[in-house]
């Protein structure tokens, strides 16, 4: 099984995306294929044994588009020293070209540079440099400034080309309109040269229009080349509609010109060159605005990509060497001075500083970093010099992962998009049929050819499905991008859509509602042991424990200067506690259930236990040699934002539950403190998922918010899993949404973002459908049937362009989304 992403070039509407998708899906060996019109990307999952990448590209090619493999490859410009002739250049080309993973190597002897395109997954830059050295030359520092961002360049070129085309079209369309329509707007007193007077020199009048429309047609030639090709391939697209509509106008006008030339001057009224000109100019304007707006929808990802620094200072043999970030290897010791960006992920080995991670987490307060702490690439070192060991480089860094995640999310489709996709797929042929039927019907009803032609053109032009194709992906792009900017990583369109339906949220308690760093608050003993001994033994038993409660006990003992002793035997009883053997004593540490299961009487401390639990503390029972020895109560601090976030969720009409392994009293005390509606207490880690399932069986749409490995099954079970904080990798992997900060306010923000995005998508779809459903009957002459006006094709073109632009503008409104604070 292989998954690949291709850049699809040449799509102009959602129908194109559908056609390309169909072409790939038909291939034997394809498991899944999705084309996103907004991102212009094809994600395809296929059986590599049955299908090759070339076959996929060929299928796309046959469908009329061009597929370029999403550049895993990089292009670098390596300055080379030591070349003396052109043969040297050839030799280097040969040597580098032979390396596995090098796509191309072009060495320019004159500039003394090698332009190498390579796949970093297969070959490292340092290997390329080594190969050059082996060939007898010296590879110098790569020229970062010359790195080619092909995609960016292509986009910019596309926008520029569209602008130039629009300008050309406008420059000729405005006078064309002036010549053609001037006489009709007599009150505006347009002066026209007498030699193109419509009544006196009708042929000149027609020729002048032909002269003016030719450059416009050339500016819009792509509509014809692509549109007619698409018809030929029986997968008509938006260009086909424009091509047929405007070609019909031009051809009929040419016929009218011929009729004028043979003396039938009445045909001077039947010239529609300006209709074709205005339609092309307006569609080009629409396409230009669409390209600009589409660029804006992916600004978030561009911002993320721009965060990474270009170089890193690596300590080698005690010397500071500045190298390109691409050359940093895992294990390198990197020096970061105040004010500099941390180049890759790593672990501080020396120094102390505070780091601004806001660009990745949205957290505005700098985080203190000492030896042993993790640092994230692209964050900013504020005030101290640190040395850290690189632990993750290249595509493994958190930033690269975030970018990948956001890119994947932006390229994914929400279920709501399916309807639009289905409609878009059938839209063009249906519109064509409607146009033909409407025109024929009017013609048969006794209307003139010109009238029928107007109907035909108007229907074709107004019904372009661009807006329909852009409605969902653009909103998802902006929505997920906005989320990423605020430290909310939404993993896909489906997650984004489901989130807005959530009516119940289950929060894990420890580390989610609370800080996750509990402290020992009370120690109660029976008469068989003293306080310090109890704490010392308990800390010894929990030493090495990763359970937050255990850690709290260890910290509590450390605080009091108590030394722990070696444990002879240790066994964990998941969800209940531990059983150990210390200094010849059998000890049980755990919850009430563990004690009851082992038949240990709790009566002596029952009242104390209840009191502690009612105060929101977690009582840990300790039994020595099967006799209750005492209780150590541990309490976790509730996060500042928890109550506020829960209140916000309540206001949003969402029921909030808390799930915990704690006893019910403790859980309820915490729940009361923050305003939780429903408490799921004394739940074993393995049962968290089934608790979520129970809620789902009540018909609820459940989101689970958690941070630990033990939350992963529940996160996966929930309709939406939300992993919080830096969390564990497993939790992040299982979650649909990852919150980069530990702030619970990001939960309502994520839900609100989802609601806003889905509302935006619905608005977009409404407008896209409204334009078409209202526009088609209008263009088909429905109003005229009841004595109303007929829609001029020029206005149809304007409405069509406006529909795409309005949908994009609406999607861009999401950029104004403000997170809750």
């Amino acid at each position, binding site marked *: 099984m292989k998954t690949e992403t291709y850049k699809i070039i040449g799509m102009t509407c959602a129908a194109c995306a559908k056609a390309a998708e169909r072409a790939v899906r038909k291939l034997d060996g394809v498991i899944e294929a999705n084309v996103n019109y907004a991102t212009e990307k094809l994600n395809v999952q296929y059986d590599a044994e049955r299908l090759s990448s070339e076959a996929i590209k060929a299928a796309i090619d046959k469908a009329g588009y061009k597929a370029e493999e999403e550049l895993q490859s990089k292009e670098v410009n390596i300055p080379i020293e030591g070349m003396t002739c052109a043969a040297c250049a050839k030799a280097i080309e040969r040597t580098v070209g032979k390396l596995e993973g090098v796509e191309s190597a072009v060495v320019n002897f004159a500039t003394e540079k090698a332009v190498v395109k390579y796949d970093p997954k297969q070959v490292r830059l340092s290997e390329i440099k080594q190969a050059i050295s082996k060939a007898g030359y010296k590879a110098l520092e790569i020229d970062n400034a010359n790195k080619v961002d092909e995609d960016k360049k292509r986009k910019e070129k596309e926008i520029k080309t569209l602008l130039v085309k629009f300008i050309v079209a406008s420059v000729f369309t405005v006078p064309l309109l002036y010549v053609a329509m001037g006489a009709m707007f007599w*009150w505006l007193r347009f002066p026209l040269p007498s030699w193109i007077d419509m009544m*006196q*020199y*009708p042929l000149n009048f027609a020729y002048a229009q032909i002269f003016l429309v030719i450059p416009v047609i050339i500016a819009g030639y792509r509509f014809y080349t692509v549109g007619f090709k698409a018809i030929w391939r029986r997968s008509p697209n938006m260009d086909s509609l424009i091509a047929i509509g405007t070609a019909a106008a031009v051809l009929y006008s040419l016929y009218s010109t011929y009729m004028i030339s043979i003396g039938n001057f*009445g045909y001077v009224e039947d010239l529609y060159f300006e209709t074709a000109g205005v339609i092309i100019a307006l569609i080009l304007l629409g396409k230009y605005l669409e390209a600009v707006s589409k660029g804006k929808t992916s600004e978030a990802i561009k911002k993320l990509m721009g965060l990474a620094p270009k170089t890193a200072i690596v300590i080698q043999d005690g010397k500071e060497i500045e190298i390109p970030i691409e050359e940093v290897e895992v294990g390198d010791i990197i020096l970061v001075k105040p004010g500099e960006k941390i180049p890759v992920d790593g672990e501080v080995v020396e120094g102390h500083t505070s780091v601004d991670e806001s660009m990745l987490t949205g957290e505005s307060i700098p985080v203190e970093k000492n030896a042993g702490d993790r640092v994230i690439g692209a964050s900013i070192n504020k005030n101290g010099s640190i040395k850290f060991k690189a632990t993750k480089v290249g595509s493994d860094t958190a930033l690269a992962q975030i970018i990948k995640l956001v890119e994947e999310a932006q390229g994914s489709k929400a279920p709501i998009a399916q309807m639009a996709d289905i409609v878009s797929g059938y839209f063009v042929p249906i519109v064509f049929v409607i146009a033909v039927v409407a025109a024929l019907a009017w013609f048969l009803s006794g209307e003139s050819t010109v009238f029928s032609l107007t109907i035909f053109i108007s229907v074709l032009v107004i019904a372009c499905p661009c807006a329909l194709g852009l409605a969902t992906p653009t909103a998802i792009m902006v929505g997920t991008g906005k989320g990423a900017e605020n430290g909310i990583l939404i993993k896909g369109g489906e997650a984004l859509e489901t989130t807005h339906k959530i009516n119940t949220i289950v929060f894990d308690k420890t580390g989610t509602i609370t800080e996750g760093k509990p402290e020992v608050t009370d120690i109660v003993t029976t008469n068989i042991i003293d306080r310090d001994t109890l704490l010392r033994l308990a800390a010894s038993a929990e030493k090495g424990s990763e359970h937050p409660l255990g850690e709290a006990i260890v910290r509590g003992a450390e605080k009091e200067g108590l030394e722990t002793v070696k444990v002879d035997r240790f066994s964990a009883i998941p969800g209940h506690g531990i059983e150990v053997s210390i200094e010849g004593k059998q000890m049980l540490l755990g919850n009430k259930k563990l004690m009851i299961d082992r038949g240990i009487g709790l009566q002596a401390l029952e009242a104390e236990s209840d009191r502690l639990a009612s105060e929101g503390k977690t009582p840990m029972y300790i039994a020595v040699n099967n006799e209750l020895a005492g209780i150590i109560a541990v309490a976790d601090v509730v996060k500042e934002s928890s109550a506020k976030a829960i209140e916000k969720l309540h206001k949003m009409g969402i029921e909030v539950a808390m799930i915990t392994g704690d006893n019910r009293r403790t859980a309820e005390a915490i729940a009361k403190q923050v305003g939780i509606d429903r408490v799921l207490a004394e739940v074993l880690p393995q049962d968290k998922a089934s608790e979520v399932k129970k809620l789902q069986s009540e018909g609820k749409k459940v989101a689970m918010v958690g941070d630990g490995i033990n939350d992963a099954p529940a996160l996966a079970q929930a309709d939406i899993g939300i992993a919080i904080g830096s969390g564990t990798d497993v939790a992040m992997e299982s979650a649909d949404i990852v919150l980069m900060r530990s702030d619970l306010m990001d939960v309502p923000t994520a839900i609100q973002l989802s609601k806003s995005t889905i509302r935006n998508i619905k608005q977009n779809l409404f407008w896209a459908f409204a334009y078409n459903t209202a526009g088609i009957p209008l263009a088909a002459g429905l109003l005229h049937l009841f004595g109303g006006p007929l829609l001029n094709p020029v206005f149809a073109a304007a409405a069509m362009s406006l529909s795409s632009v309005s949908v994009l503008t609406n999607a861009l409104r999401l950029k104004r989304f403000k997170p809750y604070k």
Partner: protein
Amino acid sequence: MKKRIIIIALALVVVFTLSACQTTDVVGNVAKSSFEALAKAIPEKIVFDEVNNGWALESPTGERFVWGKDFSAEGKPDLMLEFDARPFLTAGLDPSKLPADMYIYENESDKLKIYTELGNTTFKYKGEPTPIEAFNNIVENHRAVVGYHEKLDHYGVALGNGNMFEWAKDLATNDKDIVFVLNPQPFIDAGVDPTKVDGWVFAKVEIMDEKGKPIEVDKLLKPFNIR
């Protein structure tokens, strides 16, 4: 891109060449050919008018359209309409109240004449002057007075002040082969009740004013089916 620029340039050259060429003046050309067809259809009705130094096309009831042989001739009308004054007199015409610069009432013959001077152009002829050649000279030298009336599929020569002579582009299909068109206003001002002018139709006609605005104006019309 180069190819496209060449195509544009070629297209511009072709269009300019064609535009500059007289052959693109289809109205003028068809006006000439249709007038020739008219003249050939009624050769007996076209005679040289010595007095006015031009040719006259006469309607079955005696109205005449006269066009000059040479506009440089002194004291001769370049274009002229001539018709019976009696229906106008009966309808209340006081000839002395007609504008003297364009209208002439001949008491002896009871004729009304509307004439116009277009300039002093000397017309060139290949051989002996013919009425058709004379007309062609008018089209070529005074193109602005020749026009096409789309509604009736007529060509016309404008004498100015709303007076015209029109003929059908296609005599075979048009039931109004020639039409004398008069502006009724000067007659109304001279006491004529336009509805009572015998033999003439008082009707509204849509025309374009000097700004190109379509307007409906009153006309006195006398159409003939001459075939």
